[in-house]
């Protein structure tokens, strides 16, 4: 365990601290019938190998994506998913997962397309829970099925599509490319250690600043940096302003959902959208400009 005392979530200066919960909070709410804990990972074997007692799994490939159209699940499938894990619209869902909550924030973002606002992220994710030696189980919980009624999916507020991105570029509005510097410079077409997923060209969307997503995280325990540290990165270094109309992107919109979460909730920026088409679309799109050094 870390020996340095870190500021609590409430003391970090976030615009919306209520969207984060600590591992202590989760430990105290394991039996809370109004709380559903959801693990979302990139590695499909992590959850079955051990998870927070009572936590259900939402898998980004199987549960959140449409298998035939490159899109997220529709309202009916979202209602089915929520009903199957025993969630009601009033219930608070708490996401956590591997890789610094990368996939947890992705699931959180998809849930926001359907307006499930009672949603939180466990600060530090799976890493912090494990580092603290907290209980894990392999038991898969079963909850009584609910009849979840979802709001209509609203892509307009937090999701950006390619034509909107093109207009954004032409209007010289800010974009943040959250991929690795090598991907941003076009020296590689995929993230380090990951295979190439098929973009034809390397580079970035014209005008985008490069802020790798994981800079928002304290690597030793996966917790988020303080608002002051985050402002230093995004405002001073990358030059974005809180009231800007900002589009974030990465490779398929997963890493950038993490940055979307940071900018929207921790810094309180009101106009941030995630371009989930990201580089796997833009880097293959006929007729759009790219930029590279």
């Amino acid at each position, binding site marked *: 365990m870390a020996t340095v005392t870190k500021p609590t979530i409430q003391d970090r200066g976030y615009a919306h601290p209520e969207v984060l919960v600590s591992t202590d909070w989760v430990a105290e709410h394991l039996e809370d019938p109004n709380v559903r804990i959801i693990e979302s990972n990139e*590695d499909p074997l992590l959850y079955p*190998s051990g998870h927070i007692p009572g936590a259900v799994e939402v898998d*980004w490939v199987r549960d959140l994506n449409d298998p035939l159209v490159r899109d997220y699940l529709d309202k009916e499938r979202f209602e089915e998913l929520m009903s199957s894990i025993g969630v009601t619209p009033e219930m608070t869902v708490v996401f956590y997962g591997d890789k610094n909550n990368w996939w947890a924030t992705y699931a959180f973002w998809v849930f926001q397309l359907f307006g499930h606002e009672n949603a939180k992220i466990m600060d530090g994710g799976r890493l912090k829970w494990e580092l603290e030696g907290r209980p894990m189980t392999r038991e898969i919980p079963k909850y009584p099925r609910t009849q979840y009624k979802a709001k209509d999916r609203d892509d307009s507020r937090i999701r950006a599509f390619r034509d909107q991105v093109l207009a954004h570029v032409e209007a010289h509005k800010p974009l943040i490319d959250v991929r690795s510097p090598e991907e941003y410079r076009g020296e590689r077409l*995929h993230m380090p250690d990951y295979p190439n997923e098929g973009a034809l060209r390397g580079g970035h969307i014209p005008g985008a600043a490069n802020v790798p997503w994981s800079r928002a995280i304290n690597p030793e325990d996966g917790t988020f940096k303080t608002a002051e540290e985050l402002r230093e990165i995004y405002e001073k270094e990358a030059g974005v302003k809180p009231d800007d109309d900002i589009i974030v992107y990465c490779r398929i919109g997963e890493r950038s959902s993490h940055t979307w979460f940071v900018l929207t909730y921790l810094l309180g920026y009101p106009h941030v959208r995630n371009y989930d088409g990201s580089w796997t679309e833009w880097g293959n799109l006929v007729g759009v400009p790219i930029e590279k050094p």
Partner: protein
Amino acid sequence: MSQPIPPKLAELLDEFADITDRYERYEILTEFADAFRPVPEHIARPPYPQDHLVPYCESQMYFWARPDGDHAFKFYFASENAQSISARAMAAILDETCSGAPAWQVVHIPDDLPQRLFGKDLAMGRTLGLVSLVGMVKNVARTHVKTCPQCQAQAERGE
């Protein structure tokens, strides 16, 4: 007719072919991950040399092969990533079912082995990383078979 693969792997694939519940599938894979043992120290110790790093494996898995009999190999893996559970399961399966098997059988391991074991819900990135692990094992066998007339004869006979 498909070429023979190592019998232990064929048995495991038969077992997986009948599984419809993903958690049953994951339970078996998790048991393999639990059984994973890293490369023994007399072969390598951390920090592991970069030239043994498996390309495209996001879990930073390392790979070694040592002869085990005239036409077989013992396969070793290691990972410095504590959360690399899928990669550890895949590595443990390759060691358990393919170490000691004749090279002319190992070359016929199906390229879609990760999907057959993990199911169709694997993300593309994850799939290709696991395929890369399989590729490392097959490459060792392929290189051996190329220089071994006896292995080529065995392969032709389909034994």
